[in-house]
Structure formats: C-alpha cells, structure tokens
C-alpha cells in the first residue's frame, strides 16, 4: 500500500515482571482505517499508551512519519500529529463542550500567556481561529447544540463523540480511537461507522481498538490481532476472520459479542 505513517518495531513493554507487549511489529498506512483487536488484557490500550508517549517501551522503536516518538513528551507527540480518545471517557467535565474542543485546537497556536494579557493581534487571530475550528468540529460531530454545555452534563453518546471532536481539534495525521463504540446501541454504531468513514475521507488516518466485530469488519481496511501481548494476525478483515489462531484466541476468551 501507500507510505507507512506509523510504525512500531519490535516493541516490548514490561511492567515489573509482567510483559504487556512482546516484540510487537505494527504499522498504519496513510489514509487507511486500521483496527486493533484482541481479547481483554491483550495489550491493545498499552499500544496506544506507547504510541502517545504515556509509557516508554522497554525496547523497540516507534516511528511516526520517519521520526521517533520514544522519549518525546506527551504534548510533543500530540503536536507531531497523533491524537487519541480514551476507553473510559476522560473529558474536562467542568469545561463546556466548546472549551474541550478548543483546548485541543490550541496545540498549534503560538501565542501564550503574554499574548493573552496584551491581546496581541496574533493572539486575537489565533483565538478566533481556534474557536471557529472548535465550532466546526462540534458541528461535524453533530454536537453544535451542545457547545455551551458542560462536558459532565452531556449524554453518554455525546460525551464519546465530544472526545473524538477534541482529538480531531489537534489536527492529527493519525487518530487513535479507544473503543469508540463502547456502550452504543446498534443504531448509534451504524452512525459511528459512518462518522469514522467521513473522518477518513476528510484525510485523517484512523487506528481504532474495538470489541464489536461487525463494526470492525464493516469499516476497517486492515485488522491486527493481539493476544497476550503478541501479534498473532495482521491482514484484511476477510482473512483475519478465518484465521484459526484468531478464532482460537477468541474462543479461549470470547469477546463481547454485543
């Protein structure tokens, strides 16, 4: 396929005596929707944490558009173009929906405290741009009417959508979604699938963790499977679906079939 946006080489992650990831190789190509699946505790979220700089891998390399991510501060990784959502929703609950999104959009602003105090032209311009970008994204995610409401007061589904909007606001090249459909009903899942496609069509690359197989098979271009910290399959959905090792991994610990 096309060029590799993100590439993990031989990533091993140990916590004390526990090996969460063992020699994992993984890549995401530009413009695709890739999925990462596997039974609970397989190390999927750990991959996200390694990629976003939360954990420093015990060994191995993470490259993003040719640059190493390892050792970078979290905010620098975000600035490089990787954004994520969280398995357990972690919005800024005391801030409004718009503020949540604009916080993400601030990444690429250059003005800071001094600009804000003196109201420099650049600061004004960037504030306006960030607000506009925030509103745009809220509208894109169908949350425009929620702009002035506090994060904690939004309904569950809107909270999940707001997390995606906030991540998109950082203008990422790669969007990491950690179980975006968790707790959704079938109709909401269909809508979410459409949204993810729309995000991809807008030029973003997506890597998502999901438990819902039909959603995965529906939207992803490629599926990687983790089991006990090891990658056991990585191919187009059709092939992965029939891979005996994948079936075995899931029979041992069936996924949430909701």
């Amino acid at each position, binding site marked *: 396929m096309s060029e590799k946006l993100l590439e993990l080489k031989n990533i091993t992650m140990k*916590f004390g005596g526990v090996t969460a990831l063992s020699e994992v190789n993984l890549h995401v190509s530009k413009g695709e929707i890739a999925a990462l699946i596997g039974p609970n505790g397989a190390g999927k979220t750990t991959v996200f*944490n390694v990629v976003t700089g*939360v954990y420093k891998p015990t060994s191995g390399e993470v490259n993003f558009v040719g640059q190493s991510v390892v050792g970078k501060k979290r905010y620098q990784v975000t600035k490089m173009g990787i954004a994520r959502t*969280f398995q357990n929703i972690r919005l800024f609950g005391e801030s409004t929906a718009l503020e949540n999104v604009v916080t993400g959009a601030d990444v690429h602003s250059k003005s800071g405290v001094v600009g804000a105090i003196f109201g420099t032209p650049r600061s004004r311009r960037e504030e306006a741009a960030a607000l506009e970008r925030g509103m745009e994204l809220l509208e894109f995610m169908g949350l425009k009417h929620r702009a002035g409401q506090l994060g904690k007061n939004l309904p569950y589904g809107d909270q999940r959508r707001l997390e995606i909007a906030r991540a998109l606001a950082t203008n990422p090249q790669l969007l990491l979604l950690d179980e975006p459909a968790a707790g959704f009903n079938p109709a909401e899942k269909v809508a979410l699938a459409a949204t993810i496609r729309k995000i991809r069509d807008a030029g973003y690359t997506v890597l998502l963790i999901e438990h819902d197989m039909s959603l995965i098979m529906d939207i992803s271009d490629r599926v990687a499977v983790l089991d006990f910290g090891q990658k056991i399959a990585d191919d187009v959905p059709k092939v992965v679906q029939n891979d005996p090792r994948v079936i075995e991994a899931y029979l041992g610990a069936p996924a949430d079939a909701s």
Partner: protein
Amino acid sequence: MDFALLHDAFWGLTFDGLALGAIYALISLGYTLVYGVLRLINFAHSEVFMIGTFSALVASGIMGVKVEDDPRTGWNMIFTLLICLVAAMLASGITAVLVEIVAYRRLRQRGATKLATLISAIGVSISLVELFRIITDSLPREFPRIMDKTFLFSYAGADIRNDKVIVIIAAGLMMFALERFISKSRYGKGIRAVSMDENTATLMGVNINKVITVTFLAGGLMAGAAAFFYILVYENTSFKVGFFLGISAFTAAVLGGIGNLKGALFGGFVLGILETYTSAVFGTAWKAVISFLILVLVLLIKPTGLFGESIQQARV
C-alpha cells in the same frame, strides 16, 4: 562552618541524631498512615503531638512531680514515667480521633475537594494552637526531671546518655508493635486494603469509617509516645512545639516515601541525624534550610522518596 566539630564529635552527634530521629519517625508514622488511607496531609497532626507533650506535663503534675524536686528512683520512677507516657499517648490518640471527626468526616462523606478538607484541618490546627497559646499565656513550660540523666558509657568519644538510649529503644519497640498491628490485625489489614484501593476495600466489606478512625488513633498514639519522649529528653514544651517538629516529621515522611511505613522510619532517622550534623557544622539556625534543600534534592532525583510509595497506581 565548623567541620572540626563534626569530625571530633561524630559519634556523639550520630547518637543524638538517632534520638531525635526516633522522635521524628514516630510522628511521621501518623502522617504516613493518614496519607496512605485518605491521600491527605493531616495538617492537624502537629497539634496532636503538641497536646501529647502538655498531657505528659499535666500527668507529671498529678503524680506530684515538681520542677525543683530531685529525680525519682526505682519503681517510683518507672511508674511515674509510664503514667506520663500513657497519658500522652491517650491524649494524642483521642485528639487524633476527634480531629478526624471534626475536620475530615463530614467533608469526606460529602465528597468535598482535597483543598476544602485541608483548610478544615488547618482550621482545627489553628484553633488548637491558639487554645494552648491562651491557656499557657504564650509561655514555654518546663517539664520536671523525673529521671536522673546519667552517662551510661562512652564509645569513641561519644557519651551515651541513658534517657536517649531509652528513647531509641522504646521508639523501636513502638514501631515494631505498629508494624505487627498493621500486618497481622484485622484493622491493620483493613488499613492496608483501603490504602491500596478504597472502592474495592468497601466492596469487600471493609468498614471505611472504622478503618479511618483506627488509622488516626494509631497515628495519634505514636505521636503521643513521641511527645513523651520529646519532653523527656528536651524537658520543655510550648504551644509552638508542634509546628517545628511537624514540618520536620512530614519532611521525614516524604523523604522516605509517603504512605510507606518503613520509609517513614528511615526518613525520620536520616533526617534526625542529618539535622544534628548540619546544626554542628553550620549552626542550628541553618538546620531547617539544609533539611529543605535535602528534601528538594531527594524529590528531584527520586520523586517517590527513598523507599518509594507503597501505593502506586498506574495512571491513564
């Protein structure tokens, strides 16, 4: 600066430092226990200690000891000392439990913020200090000498004084008892469970309120013992006594790794010895400055303290 003094009196200073460190360690246990369970700095703990010193003083008065008397001897002395120790421990223990009820309980049950709880504890602390300032008319109080202080023996130029030996040994015993209590008793296990994960502990049937009360009680008893030892060695107290010892003891707890009992002990002794050394070299005036610099250095190099926090959770 006087490095010669440090060199000449090294073992004597080390010994004095151990005695001071034992007192710090006992107080810091209270900070570390409460921090382990509530994740809060018990700001009023220094006053729990202060009340202990005054209770020992009152107990000695009730026992008929007077400042101008000769020190007591034999069983009479041992009995008087024990009464004073028990009085200090009881008073501090009860104060600690009351502090929890007045300053913490309601706020905890309402899910108030950390800061609100802190201010509430600070309020209790201010009230207690002021109460004792008014009672004592802002004057320091002398503690009568119950026990004759003699040098037991000399080692490498250090004169080993009996009261300090008693303090070190007795403090060691106290800590051992606490260690046993935490690791073996039902409540001790409850304290450990809540320290690790409050929610799970509740689900497993641990009565949080009781555990917290016992935690404060245990910390208070230790602070009371420390108060008695302090007054035995230094023979005076004032309403301000808690403040200075409290800061040092808290530093000791952080130094060792807050929430970690062994860390508190270790931090207490290390700080006691270091403070004694630095007082000898730079003069007592700079003692606090140096302890502070040590603390900042330790935190920068190893943010979880020398022994690490016992309870760490992976974030994100």
